């Protein structure tokens, strides 16, 4: 999951405009539905191209978003004014709430099927060790994103909806993004190494 913003040190509260945002952008849900249906069709039709497409596109988006948000956007957000950070957070984080689970599902669902098609799932495959390594990387990322980042993310969004925003609480919650940014970045680099090794045989 993406790492977003460094902590917010001061405490302005803002007017009603800032609170008027959807925690889940409902207009994006049909697109998510289309992606899920496409994934199921790709698997059900055993189309190697479609499965490969889903895995490569999903994986590229997932890794690029994670690294870009953590390494590029994070420091930029850290240098922004507090109102600007809150503004960006309320616009960006709800979208991430839809985009990231979708690309993760695309990548993992299609990736498992791709490994099966290519014979890498079998313990006798010379590349099986790399597949198991990818399971471990996904396990670490899932633990961090689902156990630490997602709870902080959703709690921050609900906090931002309040009439009086507790900026100190948001600051505490968002520290987890900084603590885990290094591990997430390392896991994404490991993913790139494993996947390029699997692709080149």
């Amino acid at each position, binding site marked *: 999951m993406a790492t977003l913003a460094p902590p917010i040190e001061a405490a302005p509260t803002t007017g009603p405009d800032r609170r008027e945002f959807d925690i*889940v952008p409902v207009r994006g849900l049909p697109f998510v539905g289309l992606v*899920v249906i496409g*994934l*199921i069709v790709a*698997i*059900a039709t055993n189309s190697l191209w479609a499965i490969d497409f889903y895995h490569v596109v999903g994986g590229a988006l997932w890794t690029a978003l994670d690294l870009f948000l953590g390494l590029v956007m994070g420091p930029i957000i850290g240098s922004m004014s507090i109102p600007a950070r809150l503004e960006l957070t309320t616009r960006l984080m709800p979208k991430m709430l839809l985009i990231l*689970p979708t690309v993760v*599902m695309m990548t*993992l*669902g299609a990736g*498992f*099927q791709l490994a*099966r098609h290519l014979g890498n*799932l*079998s*313990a006798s495959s010379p590349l*099986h060790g790399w*597949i*198991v390594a990818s*399971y*471990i990387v996904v*396990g*670490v990322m*899932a*633990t961090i994103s*689902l*156990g*630490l980042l*997602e*709870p*902080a993310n*959703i*709690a921050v969004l*609900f*906090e931002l909806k309040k009439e009086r925003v*507790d900026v100190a*609480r948001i600051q505490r919650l968002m520290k987890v993004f900084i603590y885990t940014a290094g591990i997430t970045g390392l896991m994404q680099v490991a993913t790139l190494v494993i996947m390029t090794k699997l692709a080149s045989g």
Partner: protein
Amino acid sequence: MAEPARGVPGDGRLPPIQPIAIAVIVLIAIGGIDVSSYLPRQAPRAPVIAVLAAAALLLAANALLLARIKPFNWRRFRQVGGWYLLVYALILGTLEYVFVYDKVRGAQLAILTAMLVIFALNLPLLLGFSVARFQPPDA
């Protein structure tokens, strides 16, 4: 018994719901990696069942700890947890479909399904708690 929180529950002392939920995620990840690394053959059952049982026990303990928190914003917990339950039912249902489609059967399928069910219940509990703890308690 969990110490009653004053004001906003998240600012008071609460039971370790999040660490326990993370432990459940870790256990399910370990079990999932173990089972998946043996596919299409079956992984040795005893370690996987032990991991599964530990995860189920921790989840049940967490639910009990959560139920004892007073006061708490149960309305918000149900709202957030309910929606996440729907989302993860969809995501994990897709994974279950993949297992069935790949002809995983018998005890292996039962173990994987149990893991998915525990996972699907654990995450809404964690996420619902993460939001509700910072909301004013129910009147």
